[in-house]
């Protein structure tokens, strides 16, 4: 497996771990280890109404488990077109979450940011591979 794909798989698996951690804490009603004062405030983000999928008790982080898990599988399988679509969708969702954190809540959750960075890593690898294929 080429090195970039390996990095993407590792990022995907790390994303599963981060999302699973946030999901477990959500159901335990515990705030993750993170500042809870000022603009960096996991509590303000994770206890907001945006922390669950609309009208349910399912935390948004559960969606992260699915996205990172499927993403890792796609990278292992090497299905390029599916990878491009999946990472594109992931980037779009990260932009929505960033808008929610910054504009609607005025607070940043460090654990969520870690997950966003892991999405971005995969997006950049996908773009790099796509760029190489075009040449």
């Amino acid at each position, binding site marked *: 497996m080429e090195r970039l794909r390996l990095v993407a798989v590792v990022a995907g698996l790390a994303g599963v771990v981060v999302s699973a951690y946030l999901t477990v804490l959500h159901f335990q*009603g515990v705030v993750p280890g993170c500042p*809870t*004062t*000022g603009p960096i*405030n996991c509590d*303000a983000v994770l206890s907001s109404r945006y922390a669950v999928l609309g009208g349910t008790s399912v935390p948004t982080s559960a969606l992260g488990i699915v996205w990172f898990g499927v993403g890792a599988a796609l990278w292992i399988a090497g299905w390029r077109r599916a990878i491009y679509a999946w990472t594109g969708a992931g*980037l779009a969702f990260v*932009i929505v979450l*960033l*808008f929610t954190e*910054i*504009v609607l*809540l*005025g*607070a940043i959750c460090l654990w969520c940011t870690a997950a966003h960075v892991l999405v*971005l890593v995969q*997006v*950049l690898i996908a*773009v*790099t591979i*796509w*760029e*190489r294929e*075009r*040449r």
Partner: protein
Amino acid sequence: MSSRRPVRKGATRAPVRKPVAGTPTWVMPAAVVAGLAVLIAAFFVIRWYTTPLPPKAPSADTTAQVISIITNLPSSEFDTVGQGTANNLIKPISGSTLTGATGKPEVMYIGAEFCPFCAAQRWPLIIALSRFGTFSGLLTTTSSSSIEDPNTITFTFRSATYTSQYIDFHAVETSDRDQNPLQTPSASDQQLWSRYDSDGTIPFLDFANHYSSTGAYYGPGVISGMSWLALADTLRQADSSQSKAIIGSANLITAAICKVNADQPGSVCSGATIQNLEKNLK
């Protein structure tokens, strides 16, 4: 008829746009990062523009005037409003009677300056406690500008003192309006708070370990956009929505205090309004 477009012999596929020769492969990923950075910067600008500014703090004279108005409301107004539109969130709890620094039954408050529900709850709390004693050192403030119900006008207990011949009052403001740590609950405060409010919801009120409540008895939206003095003036009108919410909440708090204090003083506790509310406290 076939929907397929005819293909001319010898025709070539539409040319795919190729990257400019010599463009390094890092340019596209860098463009993605740059685009994302621009978006994030735009989000911060939008946030900055849409965050309302807190109202100007009243002068010392105006603050004194506001406090004088709300701590000297006529008893007839309390009777007229009754429970008003306040939600009775007071629940009975069991525990040995909590006493304060002077050995009297203690009312304990735990809240934070950023919290809009704490901001709302302080108004009826000050009004009710002022029927049993006297506050000094109350300062005006507002809840956070950056969370729901921004800039809710209120007072803070951070440097307030309370004296009464009937009860003790102990307040902890855990954070300032910018959510920076302010006051730390003592180990015994923390123990009671965890015991009777396991979620750590604020505002938390403990009435001598006989009753407790979490949350505000009315929504901060009721006083949204008002100045301190305008609200104080409005509280003199028993039929205003603010009076029904705030005086109604103050009556509930008064009833709980009367209940843990053997209905003393009679001038406050023996009226029909408070006696009726006490019956609802169980």
